[in-house]
């Protein structure tokens, strides 16, 4: 699956941009670095907003990154149908950008949490989840301090009714997220945001513990396979 170009935005304070680039490369795509200060998407076919602490999480997580020069282009591209994935801090940026509804607030137990997390994939039609099977339970790392997803009840009802809850936490809600929601999508299914980190579960030996043994989990790879498949089928 060569030829698909996936841009990864680096903000000041991004941490997982290189892991996201590695995940794209391992899945067969070309990883293209994008810089927060340049309003230039460099002709990419899809975009990842990675995890980390953009602008030190000052003001609110994602609040300042949302107004970075590159984000105007990202918002336009997302509205035009380009696949965009926000992981952890990237999810927070997507919510602050109003590309996704709701907001992420401090974990209800007030602690930073870092663990392997089970998720149920509830929507396999999005640009980033079409390689999964409906209801599939996957394991990827979770690490956040402000991962509590909240939205107005009417918004939550609409998300559920429209099948826009993409991932739900299984085996315990790690951060107080409403209705165990771990990730959501927009109406068109091209923009997906989630708190857990699929890019850390793409290579045996470096992933979460899996059925084949310690650190063998590679469930996250399907995210990147999904988007390459979507990009190439649209070409």
């Amino acid at each position, binding site marked *: 699956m060569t030829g698909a170009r996936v841009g990864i935005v680096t903000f000041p304070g991004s941490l997982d941009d290189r892991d996201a680039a590695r995940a794209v490369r391992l899945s067969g795509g070309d990883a293209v670095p994008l810089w927060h200060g340049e309003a230039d998407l460099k002709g990419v076919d899809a975009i990842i907003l990675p995890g980390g602490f953009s602008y030190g999480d000052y003001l609110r997580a994602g*609040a300042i990154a949302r107004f970075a020069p590159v984000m105007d282009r990202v918002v336009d591209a997302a509205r035009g149908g380009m696949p965009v994935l926000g992981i952890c801090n990237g999810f927070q940026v997507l919510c602050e950008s109003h590309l996704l509804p709701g907001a992420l*607030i401090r974990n*209800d137990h*007030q602690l930073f949490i870092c663990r392997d997390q089970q998720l149920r994939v509830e929507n396999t039609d999005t640009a980033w989840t079409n390689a999964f099977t409906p209801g599939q339970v996957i394991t990827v790392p979770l690490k956040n301090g402000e991962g*509590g997803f909240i*939205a107005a009840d009417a918004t939550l009802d609409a998300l559920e009714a429209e099948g826009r809850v993409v991932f739900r936490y299984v085996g315990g809600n790690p951060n107080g997220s409403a209705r165990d929601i771990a990730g959501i999508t927009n109406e068109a299914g091209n923009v997906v945001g989630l708190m857990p980190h699929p890019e850390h579960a793409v290579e045996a030996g470096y992933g979460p513990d899996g059925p084949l043994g310690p650190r063998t989990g590679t469930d996250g790879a399907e995210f990147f396979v999904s988007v390459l498949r979507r990009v190439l089928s649209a070409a």
Partner: protein
Amino acid sequence: MGRIIVEVMPKPELLDPQGKAVAGALPRLGFDQFTAVRQGKLFELTVAGDVTEADLDAAGQAAGTLLSNPIIEDVIRVVEAEQR
């Protein structure tokens, strides 16, 4: 130089873990009369001259866009600061 004060608070119906943590610490210092704490943000915006109506309008717009997230926070007040 004039200053404008913008106050932002988490919405009352939302859990405020920071305020809750502070509330839990107060009794340890002997302050046991406070039944709840909520923690918000206060911004001081400085302008070059005296504060005008247009400055206050602009501050209100900034409060509603960058300084607060209306999904989780309320802008409590946008006022000219008293002279120090």
